[in-house]
């Protein structure tokens, strides 16, 4: 049995919750370097759904790459300062432009409570990590009393728009980074650190 066969068998066992911890680790390592293993996992999940009569006739959606991009981008650190500065500049530009677009009032949408009027920028806070100014949502550290007032339906509207804008930005930034990576002669990591995104309200189980 080859190493590839062993990985595929371990993948099959993982589907059934029968893989050992070491096998899981090996599969995760192999999936990183072998996209076909990842595709196999996806196909076999679809096959399982059919076998078990779970008819998910949804459009053939694959959001996994985009999800990964967004999560990766939010966590990674650029090792090339020049590239970082360039991307940071484009980040600011994208956020400002996106913010201008989103702040245009739209009929039928209730105005969201605004804590910060900042159009969009990375705001340095003394003794704290950078905080991204957001569009109509909390952007600066505020007291609990202040935050209590914004836990409303209106905030969730603003938060949705903010997330959509952020995701759109990450998508565009990913494409931009990939295309720059192909044309840039110097080696660098083609992603950039962005301010950490704070978790939202707890989700009950």
């Amino acid at each position: 049995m080859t190493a590839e066969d062993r990985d595929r068998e371990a993948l099959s066992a993982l589907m059934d919750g029968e893989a050992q911890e070491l096998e899981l680790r090996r599969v995760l390592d192999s999936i990183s370097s072998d996209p076909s293993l990842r595709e196999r996992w996806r196909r076999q999940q679809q096959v399982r759904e059919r076998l078990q009569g779970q008819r998910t006739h949804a459009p053939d959606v694959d959001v996994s790459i985009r999800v990964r991009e967004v999560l990766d981008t939010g966590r990674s650190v650029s090792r090339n300062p020049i590239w970082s500065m360039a991307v940071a500049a484009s980040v600011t530009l994208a956020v400002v432009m996106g913010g201008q677009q989103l702040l245009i009032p739209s009929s039928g949408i209730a105005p969201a409570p605004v804590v910060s009027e900042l159009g969009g920028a990375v705001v340095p806070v003394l003794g704290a990590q950078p905080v991204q100014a957001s569009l109509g949502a909390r952007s600066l550290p505020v007291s609990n009393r202040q935050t209590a007032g914004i836990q409303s339906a209106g905030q969730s509207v603003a938060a949705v728009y903010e997330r959509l804008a952020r995701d759109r930005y990450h998508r565009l930034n990913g494409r931009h980074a990939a295309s720059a990576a192909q044309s840039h002669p110097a080696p660098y990591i083609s992603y950039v650190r962005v301010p950490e995104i704070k978790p939202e309200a707890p989700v009950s189980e």
Partner: protein
Amino acid sequence: MTASDTDKQLVQRAQRGDLRAFDLLVLKYQGRIAALVSRYVSDPGEAEDVTQEAFIKAFRALEQFRGDSAFYTWLYRIAANAAKNYLVAKGRRPRADATIEDAEGFDDGWLLAESSSPEAVAMGDELAGVVEAAMRALPDELRSALTLRELDGLSYDDIADVLECPVGTVRSRIFRAREAIDARVREQMNGESGFR
């Protein structure tokens, strides 16, 4: 051991920041979540955005998942809320409502989503047909092992008892059965562009 043990293993790793583990969960559940979201949001592009958003939100809230419920039930709730919030933000009313019982009953077979397009139904039926034909073509020993696993939900140990063979043999038979089915599915995918 069951498939939910798989989720536990992957969730635990994802909670420690392993994005590869979370990626496998996304690949596993994105079809079901997209189907759920489509029940609220009819536009395919918007539904895809909301599906993506639901997974990102789930990852960010993963620390709060304690395992009291099944991971899919928890994820389902996040996705349903994401879809509802999206519609509220757009000033629209949900055209359908999904209950948590839908998520919990999913493992017993999910009903056809009302929003399914004819193309999606056709593709789903096509895959089901390929899988069914591939199952029929399997040697008996492989088909029995896979049937006991996928349809009866037995663990490898239980299957070994039923088939009176070592657990290692069960594991190998299930693996070989999946390989054979996967070969047929890939063959079909390569032959027809509309089928992925």
